[in-house]
């Protein structure tokens, strides 16, 4: 759109002078005539009129002029693009350097630790007391400081240089604000999750308002933590600035962070800030501040690194961190040190720890980055946005002969197990497509088929270790399976040990199985009217629960925030919270609301507990999802969620999103905070009046899955375009 407009403008300008020329030349055409003999001759031969030729020449000239300007424009455009790409490359390099630095640091720490360990193990002079953590911690950060300080300052210096060059270059080219805007957007997408720290900064260029709004809207927990530091630093200086520059203040805090970052990428935003006149003052103030902050930063950096090392050693004690860091600091350092932030980002981009794992070859370290990313990254706006729009169908798992009743993800690997009415369970590895003899599409073939049930398999659960899974069928027996180890040949010989054991006790269909997230307990609910708690270590029955007045249990779940309780849904349409030890009902979750069709309408298909809050969510035949407070038993919220019976619920591991499946053939993703539907996906076909039986979130990877009556299981994943992976 932009190119035609300036083009039109220039042609207009070009044509008007030519008309002027025309006007001048026209009248005295005769005088000039002698000067242009050649044209005169040709004129005589082919009978051209002088005005005609002149007009033609003028026309041509205008045309060439126009083309020239257009080319110039194009050239400028391309130059801008080159600069842009160069800048991008620079950014990538910085990023790489950062990562390398971080890797080096971690390696160093590891070496230190090994040396220490070796010393402790074989040296005789050290006593037991030294083995304790504090001595450990103090030693490691210290050495780190020495090794790191020169290193980071060097990289800082080169960054600054590069930055300066970029700045000059940009000014030469005459970057427009819009291009910078586009650029910062690009950088934002490039950096994926991380750059929300740029959010306020880049917003400051053109759309301060929107930028800030976005940041404060979506940044969630992170914003306050981030603001805290910079605002303190700048507050004194900013007291005299007018209230009208509040937005600028926001920007400033962003810029300030950037300065501290010593980050080449974000510099463009700084730069743009300086270019735009209104922010010159604040940003220069920020600069001054930043110079002071540099020393602070140096210290900060060390702190941060110390903390990283501590993390790596799995020592979570905040109190022992030197410099008296507060609770908010872990988040802070991720923002204020480029290295921390970027590694979190890159690991996210790697779609999990795979990439990091492979490059480092250090399982623990990879774990570390994932851990870092885990808490703050989830609050980032981009995550939210991507969750909003970009779950897209990835794999269709077709191999069952009849409806898939249940599915369960492996806690860590991209492995899924499905349980079907065709009496079998199948194991799928989403990353390992069987050497496809047939098609190149993303069809996954099952790696293993669990045979043992003699009726439709109704439910399935995976232990938190991922080593066992439990399934149960209409015959009432619960089968405990040892998940075969990878790699698997789908046509390997039969191992009878895969079916580890059977838990017998129920006398009718078992409809729901749940593994306790921490303890070695398994909970089952059966149509025989009872719920049973099993020990998965001894494979024996621990306790039996039932509720006379409520009838047959339909679903159950462990209460996540209180590990000694569970909630069970009954055919009466009510849920009851039980104490696991005493077996006594503690709270009844009752809805005071009228239910349209009393008999069937209130039937609860699924009850799940929020992973963090004392909330139980229930899926009902009458198309509702209801929310209950586990402590008071009151209904907190109720909503019509689907066009037909809601059959299954799953909460993501962070407790932010709810996934629901329904017999209306669709699955829906809900924001638990606002209780609004974020995405709807039509997933399965109907068989009789049933469509979707189960949905699940992968505990650690960006996968969700749905199981359908049509015999298919579908796996969706976050769109890799927006959710950085690879």
């Amino acid at each position, binding site marked *: 759109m932009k190119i035609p407009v300036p083009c039109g403008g220039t042609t207009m300008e070009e044509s008007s002078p030519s008309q002027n020329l025309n006007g001048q030349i026209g009248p005295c055409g005769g005088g000039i005539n002698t000067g242009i003999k050649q044209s005169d001759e040709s004129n005589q031969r082919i009978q051209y009129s002088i005005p005609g030729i002149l007009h033609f020449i003028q026309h041509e000239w205008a045309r060439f002029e126009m083309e020239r300007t257009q080319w110039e424009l194009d050239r400028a455009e391309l130059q801008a693009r080159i600069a842009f790409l160069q800048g991008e490359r620079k950014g990538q390099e910085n990023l790489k350097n950062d990562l390398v630095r971080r890797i080096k640091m971690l390696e160093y720490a590891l070496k230190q630790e090994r040396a220490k360990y070796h010393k402790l193990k074989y040296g005789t002079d050290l006593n037991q007391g030294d083995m304790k953590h504090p001595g450990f911690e103090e030693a490691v950060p210290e050495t780190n400081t020495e090794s790191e300080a020169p290193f980071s300052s060097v990289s800082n210096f080169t960054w600054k240089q590069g930055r300066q060059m970029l700045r000059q270059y940009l000014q030469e080219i005459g970057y427009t604000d819009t291009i910078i805007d586009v650029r910062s957007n690009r950088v934002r997408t490039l950096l994926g999750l991380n750059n929300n720290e740029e959010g306020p900064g880049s917003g400051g260029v053109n759309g301060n308002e929107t930028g800030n709004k976005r940041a404060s809207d979506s940044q969630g927990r992170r914003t306050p933590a981030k603001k805290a530091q910079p605002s303190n630093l700048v507050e004194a200086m900013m007291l005299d600035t007018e209230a009208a520059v509040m937005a600028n203040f926001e920007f400033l805090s962003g810029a300030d962070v950037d300065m501290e970052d010593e980050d080449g990428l974000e510099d463009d935003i700084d730069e743009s800030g300086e270019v735009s006149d209104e922010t010159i003052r604040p940003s220069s103030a920020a600069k001054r501040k930043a110079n002071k902050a540099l020393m602070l930063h140096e210290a900060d950096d060390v702190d941060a690194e110390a903390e990283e090392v501590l993390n790596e050693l799995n020592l979570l004690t905040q109190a022992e961190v030197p410099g008296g860091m507060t609770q908010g600091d872990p988040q802070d350092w991720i923002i204020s040190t480029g290295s921390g932030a970027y590694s979190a980002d890159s690991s996210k981009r790697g779609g999990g720890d795979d990439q990091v794992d492979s490059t480092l070859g250090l399982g623990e370290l990879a774990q570390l980055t994932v851990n870092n990313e885990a808490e703050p990254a989830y609050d980032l706006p981009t995550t939210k946005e991507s969750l909003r729009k970009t779950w897209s169908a990835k794999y269709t798992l077709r*191999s069952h002969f009849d409806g898939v009743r249940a599915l369960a993800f492996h806690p860590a690997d991209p492995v899924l197990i499905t349980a079907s009415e065709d009496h079998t369970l199948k194991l799928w590895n989403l990353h390992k497509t069987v050497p496809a003899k047939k098609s190149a599409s993303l069809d996954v073939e099952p790696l293993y088929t669990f045979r043992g049930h003699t009726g439709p398999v109704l439910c399935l659960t995976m232990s938190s270790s991922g080593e066992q899974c439990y399934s149960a069928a*209409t015959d009432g027996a619960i089968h405990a399976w040892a998940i075969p180890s990878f790699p698997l040949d789908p*046509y390997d010989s*039969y191992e009878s040990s895969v079916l580890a054991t059977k838990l017998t006790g129920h006398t009718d*269909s078992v*409809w*729901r199985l749940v593994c306790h997230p921490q303890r070695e307990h398994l909970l089952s609910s059966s149509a025989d009217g009872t719920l049973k708690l099993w020990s998965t270590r001894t494979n024996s029955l621990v306790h039996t629960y039932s509720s006379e007045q409520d009838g047959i249990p339909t679903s159950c779940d462990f209460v996540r925030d209180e590990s000694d309780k569970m909630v069970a849904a009954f055919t009466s349409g009510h849920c009851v919270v039980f104490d696991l030890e005493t077996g006594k009902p503690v709270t009844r979750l009752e809805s005071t609301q009228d239910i349209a069709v009393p008999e069937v309408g209130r039937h609860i298909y699924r009850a799940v507990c929020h992973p963090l809050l004392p909330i139980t969510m229930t899926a009902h035949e009458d198309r509702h999802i209801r929310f209950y407070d586990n402590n008071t038993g009151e209904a907190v919220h109720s909503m019509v969620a689907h066009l037909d019976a809601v059959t299954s619920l799953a909460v993501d591991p962070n407790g932010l999103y709810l996934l629901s499946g329904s017999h209306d053939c669709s699955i829906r993703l809900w924001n638990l905070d606002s209780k609004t539907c974020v995405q709807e996906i039509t997933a399965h076909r109907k068989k009789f009046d*049933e469509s979707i039986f189960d949905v699940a979130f992968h505990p650690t990877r960006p996968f969700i899955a749905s199981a359908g009556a049509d015999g298919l299981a579908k796996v969706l994943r976050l769109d890799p375009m927006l959710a950085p992976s690879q």
Partner: protein
Amino acid sequence: MKMADGSTILRRNRPGTKAKNFNGWPDEPFEEMDSTLAVQQYIQQQIRKEPSNIELILTPPESQDEGVWKYEHLRQFCMELNGLAVRLQGECLPENCTQMTATEQWIFLCAAHKTPKECPAIDYTRHTLDGAACLLNSNKYFPSRVSIKDSSVTKLGSVCRRVYRIFSHAYFHHRNIFDEFENETFLCRRFTHFITKYNLMSKDNLIVPIVEGDAVGSGESEA
């Protein structure tokens, strides 16, 4: 639709349904099944109604496409054969049945591998069923359950031939399991009938003796 909800039957197995009521809904006429899985629904409904009435089960509804009909039946057979495989797992050990045999005449090689292999009988059974599941669910050969290419229909024959060997092995080597299973499901009889009706295998290969017309308890009468 919504108005009718109160009165119409919702054919659903809700959580908490007892095993004896599983799928225990009234029959739905084939004409009213509007799902893409109508044929499967219809076949399963007929089997549930009376598993021994093989003639009725194998009678397609009017104007039913024969390819789909055969395909859906074969799916159902493979699915129900899981039941036989589960029973065999307990008794048909690799140590005892080192080869897939029925009569002593043939040793069957397992086609699931790159080069056909002499798998023990239980592995042959499992691999054949797994392979059949993959083929019958293959997006390439059977992308739709409403219409099936003629070229894919020809694949059904080889699946039938392999799957039939499971029956014959069980019959000749694990007779008690076979009889028990057959009395419950009438599966081998139905399968034989199916094969003959649609001429999916040569008659010479049908080595498990089946007495025609004897509805119940024919398993024991064979010897």
